[in-house]
């Protein structure tokens, strides 16, 4: 995969002084190739929309209103936990936290002429719905025949002010009466973020390791390769289970444990690229100019290796997400109560009478992984120097 391909590009560039464009001609060609893969291109946009939306999950699914007006003061419960003293300054029994889902609080606000703007879904991932229409796990809202049936538990039945679409469990609840839709949104976010951070960190470590090995070669390469062989022959899953059993479960601890092993995937390709490119003539030319090794590695060799690395990234990202999901499924993943897709699948397995659990978890995971794979395919096309689109 040399960049001789750039010479195939017969584009003519207008004469005269021309500052460097935002994308170099080579990258422009790559972007064109990426776009030419329509499936990957649309997957990228769809994924970006879903991901950006999920980043604002607190504004989409939350048990706190986004904005509250009460007696001239504006409250933003999304960002801040308010004490009940804000509403009832003289009440000695005021609780430290306002529960805006409490009808008493809602009445108080409405009586004072105030208003609340709720997110479209009035549940967070850990909110327990106290008014589930049937015993948890409860069916999705669309499977009920009438409003009355959905709102049986509310004080005023279908006439209750809380009997609104935001309070219906669109995709039902899990066995702890938590809203599945909300858990999916948060679960999607945490999975993607976990994958992105893990992939990014593994790439940095793996590329650095592979670069040093490939550039210097000889003994450094030999010892490094043997270390990696030993390291990667460890039974990773058992180690993960053992470490996860000893250390307290948590997002960062899990990330750290998986990082211990995932960086190895990058070393091979980066090392190979560096080994190949370190004898390129332009690298020799840089050496002849007296350019220090570090600069040669960063300026002349890393861009070569980045092509291979970027092609790899989406697939590593997918692998990371899958690993997280399977650990959650096995019960060794994120701490209990976290929004986790793996845990949702586990519930689906344990509650076969509630198929919406398994189905919704399965659909979200498979859509997410498929989108990433399609993007990965398009990325591979984009960086393929031999790929031409007629």
């Amino acid at each position: 995969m040399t960049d001789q391909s750039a010479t195939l590009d017969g584009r003519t560039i207008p004469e005269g002084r021309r500052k460097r464009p935002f994308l170099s001609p080579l990258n422009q060609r790559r972007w064109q190739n990426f776009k030419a893969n329509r499936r990957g291109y649309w997957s990228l946009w769809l994924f970006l929309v879903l991901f950006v939306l999920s980043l604002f999950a607190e504004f989409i699914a939350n048990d706190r209103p986004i904005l509250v007006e009460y007696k001239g003061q504006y409250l933003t419960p999304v960002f801040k936990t308010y004490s009940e003293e804000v509403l009832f300054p003289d009440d000695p029994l005021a609780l430290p936290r306002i529960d805006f889902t409490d009808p008493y609080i809602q009445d108080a606000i409405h009586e004072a002429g105030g208003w609340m703007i709720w997110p479209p879904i009035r549940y967070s991932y850990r909110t327990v719905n106290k008014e589930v229409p049937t015993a948890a796990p409860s069916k999705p809202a669309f499977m009920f025949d009438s409003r009355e049936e959905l709102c049986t538990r509310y004080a005023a039945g279908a006439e209750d002010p809380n009997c609104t679409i935001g309070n219906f469990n669109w995709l039902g609840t899990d066995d702890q009466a938590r809203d599945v839709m909300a858990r999916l949104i948060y679960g999607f976010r945490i999975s993607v973020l976990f994958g992105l951070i893990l992939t990014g960190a593994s790439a940095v470590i793996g590329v650095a390791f592979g670069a040093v090995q490939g550039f210097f070669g000889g003994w450094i390469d030999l010892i490094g390769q043997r270390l990696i062989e030993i390291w990667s022959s460890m039974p990773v899953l058992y180690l993960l289970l053992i470490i996860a059993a000893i250390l307290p479960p948590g997002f960062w601890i899990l990330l750290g444990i998986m990082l211990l092993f995932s960086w190895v995937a990058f070393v091979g390709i980066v090392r190979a690229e560096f080994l190949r490119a370190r004898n390129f003539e332009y690298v020799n030319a840089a050496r002849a100019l007296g350019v220090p090794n570090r600069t040669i590695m960063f300026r002349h060799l890393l861009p070569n290796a980045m092509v291979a690395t970027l092609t790899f990234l989406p697939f590593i990202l997918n692998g990371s997400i899958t690993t997280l999901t399977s650990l959650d499924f096995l019960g060794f993943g994120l701490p209990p109560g976290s929004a986790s897709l793996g845990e949702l699948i586990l519930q689906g397995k344990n509650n076969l009478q509630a198929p919406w659990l398994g189905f919704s978890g399965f659909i979200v995971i498979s859509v997410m992984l498929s989108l990433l794979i399609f993007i990965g395919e398009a990325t591979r096309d984009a960086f393929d120097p031999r790929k031409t689109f007629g």
Partner: protein
Amino acid sequence: MSTSSPLLSVRDLSVAFTQGGRTTTAVDRISFDIADGETVALVGESGSGKSVSALSVLKLLQYPAASHPSGEIRFRDRDLLSASDAELRRVRGNEIAMIFQEPMTSLNPLHSIEKQIGETLKLHGFEEKTIPGRILELLDQVGIRDAQKRLKAYPHQLSGGQRQRVMIAMALANQPKLLIADEPTTALDVTVQAQILKLLDDLKREQGMSMLFITHDLGIVRRIADRVCVMTDGKIVETGPTEKIFTDPQHDYTKHLLAAEPKGQPILLDEGAETVLTGEAVKVWFPIRKGLMRKTVDNIKAVDGVDVTVRAGQTLGIVGESGSGKTTLGLALTRMISSQGRIRFDGKDIDAFSFEAMRPLRREIQIVFQDPFGSLSPRMSIAEIVGEGLAIHEPGLSRDGRDQRVVEALKEVGLDPETRFRYPHEFSGGQRQRVAIARAMVLKPKFVMLDEPTSALDMSVQAQVVDLLRDLQRKHNLAYLFISHDLKVVRALANEVMVMRNGEVVEQGRSNEIFDAPKTDYTKALMAAAFDIEVAPAGVVSE
């Protein structure tokens, strides 16, 4: 020429390539004929469309990216352009055979030559029993000695010339009527080139073949062709008998091509000039290790005890066949690889200097590499490439100051400084080599090693680069170490010459003395092959 219809007749042939919605015409309505037993040469510089024309005769281009908007190719009164795939397969290898430029990549590295030649024979309907005999006969014909012992050899065990001979044997397997040779000797040493050309000529005569010969080298054309078609920009601008083209060219481009040989005289030798770099008994040995303990059992003596002196304002040319150690010697002298023996630069013993200690000297010792496509990073603009050394050796220079120096250097090598924000792929080979020279010159060095700086360039561009190098030398009193296998270029630039073979110096002296009166057989053979394309007696040069 006979009055009957020609063997191959190409009429109004055009070739177009479509990529990303853009269509470029590579060949524009060319016509030529090849009669029985005739050799026609297609001559042109790179990008002129000569190879594409030859490949389209057998429809070997990448279809459908390539297309033929117009034209007709008649071979023995059959139209090849409209022929079906099955028909074409019968013609390919049977009646029209082809040999390519790079014999290493044209042979499958995983099969012995016996198997590869045998496969060609089998494909074209030879009986199983007769194949071994025919293989030996063919290898004998193409001049492979001890053919019986060579049968089991793999391509990597053969030299470049032998590989090309095997390729020719495969092409001749079915006694084709027409042989298309696409730059068959470009990748070979001059001495081997002479042998291969003689072989092709002999075979053509024996077998009564016709030959379509594609080359950029006018010397070869003169030696081998009956008729010449001169191509440029996809058009044939002049056609005629070889002698007439050479003695009385009509078209401007043909004149330009004929005048393009590197000319001019090197700067006069000045024995008293200040010595810049000397090497005493320089050795580069690569150990061969064997056994469990990796004991050194022998050495490959790439450079074996060479004494060198390069003076300010003078050029020392190092010539020799590939593998003679000339580039290795240059790399050792510039301390790019480790070596033994004393190396003095500017009064300092630098042979023991570390990479760090060498860094301040790097600005005075510069290297220009062979491949202008490989030696420029594709991801850096011209300004960044030329300015890279300045950033290291003159860190105090301001941005504007550096830019100013880059502009000066580009002007000095004859490039428009306004183009400095472009990337290497937007430049032609000659322009890129100018950039590479500017990168060396911007640091104002004392000593420049030029490693085959012209061999990847077209003839007319070679001459320009040689002129440029000579001007720069005169202006800055530069010491050149000029490494080349191309004796014509060396003659135009070097005032001292060193002839190397197998890591040792065969002959050394003033350039005019060596060129006019070579003393050793090896040098004589080299000169004959380079200037007259004459074959040396067996044993003097490599095969």
